[in-house]
């Protein structure tokens, strides 16, 4: 991993001016429903500027929906979401999304997809550039620097679909960094990766956070995947925040087995 703290701060932009409250994210009593049922059931959460928060829970706990709510990708039935000091509404979601890097779960890509790694990373810059503006040398240089920093430069010309799962995940993170975000949302970034690729992604998440003091929300169903930099843990179950607290306090075997086992029991009863 060719990663250093200085290499991730090359663009030198400050991400410190977020809100007057010191909160990067404030969620109040958020309710989100899908056809299948309630995905978020009255969730309230504050995330401070520069904080690294881990969200864990079993499948179907509402973790991904919570990230989507932060990025305005789902409609709230009830409640409010404030991101970077702005309340998410019908007309400003696009504006807010440009400042939030969202790394979604890697899906099976068509290996024949006509897009290279460099092109997919460049997409991160397109939202900020806006319509009618084409990327210039500075944007291309930014993408090249991120590719080099993440060890993807040698793969830049390859079709995206030819990359391994870990490499595709890195490309997705690179795309989010090219966006120059103020908040980074990572949704199961280590899912389906082998041990080495998982270690690299965890290390990458830590390095990005430490070098840029980027507000980071890391979702996983595997508590072992949480980087050490993640000090506060939110445990979710059945669309609610079940428990939260400092890593050392909350991450004990009893609590974890209760989080996953209780859910299993309650599902079995349904």
């Amino acid at each position, binding site marked *: 991993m060719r990663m250093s703290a200085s290499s991730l701060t090359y663009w030198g932009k400050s991400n410190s001016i977020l809100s007057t409250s010191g909160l990067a994210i404030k969620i109040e009593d958020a309710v989100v429903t899908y056809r299948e049922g309630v995905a978020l059931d009255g969730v309230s959460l504050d995330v401070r500027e520069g904080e690294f928060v881990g969200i864990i829970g079993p499948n179907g706990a509402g973790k991904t929906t919570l990230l989507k709510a932060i990025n305005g*990708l789902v409609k709230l039935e009830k409640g409010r979401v404030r991101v970077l000091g702005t309340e998410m509404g019908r007309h400003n979601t696009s504006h807010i999304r440009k400042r*939030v890097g969202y790394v979604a779960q890697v899906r099976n890509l068509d290996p024949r997809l006509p*897009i290279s790694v460099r092109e997919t990373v460049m997409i991160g810059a397109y939202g900020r550039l806006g*319509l009618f503006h084409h990327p210039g040398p500075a944007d291309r240089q930014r993408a090249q620097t991120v590719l080099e920093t993440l060890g993807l430069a040698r793969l830049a010309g390859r079709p995206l679909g030819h990359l391994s799962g870990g490499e595709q995940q890195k490309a997705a993170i690179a795309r989010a960094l090219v966006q120059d975000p103020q908040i980074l949302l990572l949704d199961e970034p280590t899912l389906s990766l082998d041990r080495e690729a998982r270690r690299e992604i965890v290390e990458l998440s830590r390095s990005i956070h430490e070098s840029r003091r980027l507000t980071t929300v890391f979702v996983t169903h595997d508590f072992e995947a949480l980087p050490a930099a993640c000090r506060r843990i939110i445990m979710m179950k059945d669309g609610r925040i079940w428990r939260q607290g400092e890593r050392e306090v909350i991450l004990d075997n009893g609590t974890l087995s209760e989080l996953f086992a209780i859910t299993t029991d309650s599902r079995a009863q349904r």
Partner: protein
Amino acid sequence: MAIWEYGFMQNAALAGLFGGLACSLVGVFVVTTGLSFIGVCIVHAAFAGALLGVWLGFNPLAGALAFSLLATAIIGPLADRGEINADTSIGFIFSLMIGLAFLFVGLMPGARTEALNLFWGSILTVGRDTLVFMGAVALVVVAVIAVFFKEIQAVLCHRDVAVAVGIPATAVFYGLLILTGATVTASLQSIGGLLIYALILNPAAAAYQLTYSLKRMFLLSAAFGVGSCWTGLVISYLLNLPTGAVIVIVSSIAFAIAAAISPKRKARKWLKSRTTI
């Protein structure tokens, strides 16, 4: 060649240029997103709308445009919201449009020559007004791709990501569907309702087999589209065969050859072997 001295052949060559260009370029939208059935549906909606125009005596192109836009307005949200399975909702609109098309034909009095021309197309009798319309649509398609290439690339390859980074992905997606509808409308009279979809699908599908670059895919698809039209035109003239059918067969052969020599077949085998190790 002597055949280009005829005025009708010159017009047909221009129709092949404009129609082949526009159809093959919008074909890239359809093939890359894997939504080929949406394209079929829009084509048949335009076809039904044109037949309604013939039956009721108004401009068939106006009917075609109105119906293709209506189909787009119905299919897009249904597929997006996921309230009904996308295939089911598109299949519903498709079968409705086919039913309406045959109903309008059945209700027409007389010889129905104009209606039958819409089935098979009549590239050899294309008029100046139609040519101007086809040229204008082709120009708009090329201009939209040139101006919004980065947004189109993001939406075609990573629609979810495009939304997440703040690109107006839904507007771009619907814009592409509307462009597809307009292209179908413009080419309906010259290529024919039953044949036009092959000209949308085959060149783009052939190009998809040959490159990993979206820019090159647009260029290759355009070359295949225009090349199929011109080659089909010459062959049909020399062998006295129906032009629209020959154009479609030529484009199908181009796809078959591209699929046979595709470097992506090797890549697929390589990826398969890599995952099974």
